[in-house]
């Protein structure tokens, strides 16, 4: 007599089950590949350094900061103008985005290279100037805006445009029947991107542009933790109060005013610019038409195989890590769980995790766990997981539970998670592209990803090699994005443009 068994829970063809299977495949793939990752824990006495860091954060020395207001001013100005120029470049591109393969490819390419690497490129031509900073933000953002704006415009309801009398011109139709309908979402996304650009603007300090990150990185690197603490608090404060100083009515004024904080403006040597673009970026043998020399040149490129492998592996681990962290953390900031005090704490934790530059998180883990891929993994997972958790909590807060009386566990598993999971997974797939881009950044930490070799090439002033590796990175990013797009949940309407 056979026991009656429940049908296998993962069989079936409902959208929910498809998502569950997809997530499990992703996690399984990560676990199978984990042995190939370099994940040893070696540090044995991190506590002295960590306690110095903790005291620094707890007892910031505000007085020791040199001209923090100037750094903040420049950080905000660069973010504002970088975003604005990105909009100005990206919006026209968005209008032709779905009609031109060339535009789509170009946008995918500029998007695929991290802001910091753009900065390193522009640095060679424009030096430490406002142009380098603005271009490093505006160029990739133009690609991002073009794509997201195009998607938002495409999703605009057609009713209004369809009901227009025949013969209405393209422009009139756009400004009356399309733009107003998409306006709110375009504005929301632009706003979100501005917040991103604020973090990126700080990061630009890490390569030497005198934003807040310049001082933060110096202080942190040299172990002046009381100063680093003060700067970090300043940064959290800046991000946390964006709702007040970044008010819609205040922004135009701020934008105009900040124009005077931007600088310095470079003296551009056109000969040098031309030499860089026409000569420095390309392998010398290629320019000479020396094919054997080109082979030798390629032979001198650091091991591409392991670098690509490490990049992809870290990207996969970071994506799966972010998924798990997001699943664990989102209830902390949701109104359905805990009390006002825990929610405040949870929100602060999420904001802290997503605002702290990944490089810094990674260094703390480096001290704790020793040099390996582990610190980079944790930094990526925590940073991106917290970001996704924050958006998921916001999504969950809009849901009214059907059965109010359930205990917290039941509410999580039966009421809320099934409803927010498709959106959450879609976010994770969207972030995969960003995570791959960030692995390149963490290469600066010593993990031999593509980013590590790009950083080295820039340091050795071998721009042709750096450029070649950037092209490889961009190609990899585009491929990963295409893959993620293929497998991301299609059933979800991405009603929150900020999720991209």
């Amino acid at each position, binding site marked *: 007599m056979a026991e009656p068994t429940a049908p296998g829970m993962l069989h079936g063809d409902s959208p929910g089950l498809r998502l569950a299977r997809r997530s499990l495949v992703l996690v399984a793939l990560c676990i199978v590949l984990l042995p190939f990752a370099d994940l040893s824990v070696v540090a044995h006495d991190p506590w002295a350094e960590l306690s110095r860091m903790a005291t620094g954060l707890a007892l910031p020395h505000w007085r*020791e900061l040199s001209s923090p207001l100037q750094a903040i001013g420049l950080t905000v100005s660069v973010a504002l103008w970088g975003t604005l120029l990105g909009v100005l470049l990206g919006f026209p591109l968005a209008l032709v985005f779905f009609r031109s393969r060339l535009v789509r490819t170009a946008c995918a390419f500029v998007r695929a290279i991290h802001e910091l690497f753009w900065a390193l490129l522009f640095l060679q031509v424009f*030096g430490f100037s406002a142009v380098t900073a603005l271009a490093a933000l505006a160029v990739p953002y133009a690609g991002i805006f073009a794509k997201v704006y195009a998607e938002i415009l495409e999703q605009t309801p057609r009713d209004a445009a369809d009901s227009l009398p025949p013969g209405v011109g393209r422009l009139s139709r756009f400004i009356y029947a399309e733009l107003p309908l998409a306006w709110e979402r375009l504005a929301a996304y632009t706003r979100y991107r501005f917040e991103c650009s604020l973090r990126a603007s700080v990061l630009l300090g890490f390569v030497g542009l005198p934003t807040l990150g310049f001082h933060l990185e110096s202080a942190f690197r040299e172990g002046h933790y009381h100063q680093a603490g003060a700067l970090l608090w300043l940064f959290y404060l800046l991000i946390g109060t964006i709702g007040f100083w970044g008010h819609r009515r205040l922004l135009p004024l701020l934008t105009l005013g900040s124009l005077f904080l931007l600088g310095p403006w470079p003296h551009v040597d056109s000969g040098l610019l031309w030499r860089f673009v026409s000569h420095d970026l390309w392998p010398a043998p290629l320019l000479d038409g020396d094919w054997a020399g080109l082979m030798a040149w390629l032979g001198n490129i650091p091991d591409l195989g392991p670098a690509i492998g490490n990049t992809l592996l870290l990207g996969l681990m970071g994506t799966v890590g972010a998924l798990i962290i997001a699943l664990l953390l989102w209830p902390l900031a949701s109104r359905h769980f805990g009390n006002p005090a825990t929610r405040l704490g949870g929100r602060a934790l999420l904001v802290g995790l997503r605002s702290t530059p990944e490089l810094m998180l990674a260094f703390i883990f480096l001290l704790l766990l020793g040099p390996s891929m582990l610190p980079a993994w944790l930094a990526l997972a925590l940073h991106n997981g917290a970001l996704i958790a924050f958006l998921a909590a916001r999504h969950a807060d809009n849901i009214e539970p059907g059965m109010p009386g359930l205990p917290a566990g039941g509410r999580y598993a039966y009421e809320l998670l099934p409803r927010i999971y498709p959106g959450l997974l879609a976010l994770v797939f969207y972030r995969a592209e960003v995570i791959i881009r960030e692995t390149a950044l963490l290469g600066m930490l010593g993990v031999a990803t593509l980013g590590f070799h790009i950083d080295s090439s820039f340091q050795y002033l071998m721009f042709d090699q750096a450029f070649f590796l950037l092209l490889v990175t961009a190609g990899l990013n585009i491929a990963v994005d295409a893959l993620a797009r293929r497998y991301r949940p299609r059933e979800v309407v991405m009603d929150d443009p900020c999720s991209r």
Partner: protein
Amino acid sequence: MRRLIATTLMLLGLAPVAQTQAQDTFRFTAIPDEDQTRLVERFQKVADYLADTLDVDVEYVPVKSYSAAVSAFRNDQVQLAWFGGLSGVQARRLVPGSQALAQGVEDAAFHSYFIANADTGIAADQDQLPESLEGHSFTFGAKTSTSGRLMPEYYLRERFGEAPESLFSRVGFSGDHTRTIALVESGTYDVGAVNYSVWNAAVEAGRVDTDKVHVVWETPAYPDYQWTIRGDVDEHFGDGFTDRVRQALLGMTDPDLLESFPRQGFIPVSNDAYAPIETVGEDLGLLR
């Protein structure tokens, strides 16, 4: 929208104005290997000294890394720079005609220290690089630092005849001497290579726990930091400007100024003094 167009036009209009100002000011940069706090304030004093002595406007341009300093030098954003050994060679190769003017008294015979965490059991102050380094984890400083990367790697290869990657279980780049000390002290890396002057300063200031980390070996002497000036400054600032700058640097005796580098004083030097650095750089594939 109108506001936006107006501001964009202003933005475009400002650029040329700023450009014309750029010509008359003599700019320099320096990357000290320790204590980059209040850089601008401290080097403002050096800028003031140079301005008084040379009778031109002088401005200090802060930079973050060796490669950034080289880029600024190449782009003529700075005309004078306090470079490390390797970055100086890089810069002079990129800007033909530029020359090394002066080095620190200490730089004629500079050293690197190999330091080890006490738990490794590697004894302190040995005559040559100990065999027992093999198999430990190791960190350099910045990738293009002369004292934190180039010369340590040279002596490692000379002693063991193999690349650091095959000698050690793991090779990292801490990015900075201070960080190298912190990472070896905490045991994150077993062994590291560090600028001797940064180490000495840190020990003196009590920032290092010498029970946990100690010096294992000191490299032979090699030339390091130097002031390098662009070849075209005489055209822009008048004949003999290069010599006047050299004299100004050599005449810098105020300890308050010298503390920023930190050096006891400056002595004359020529490009040729750095030929050994150039050779090593080429051998290691850091120069081409």
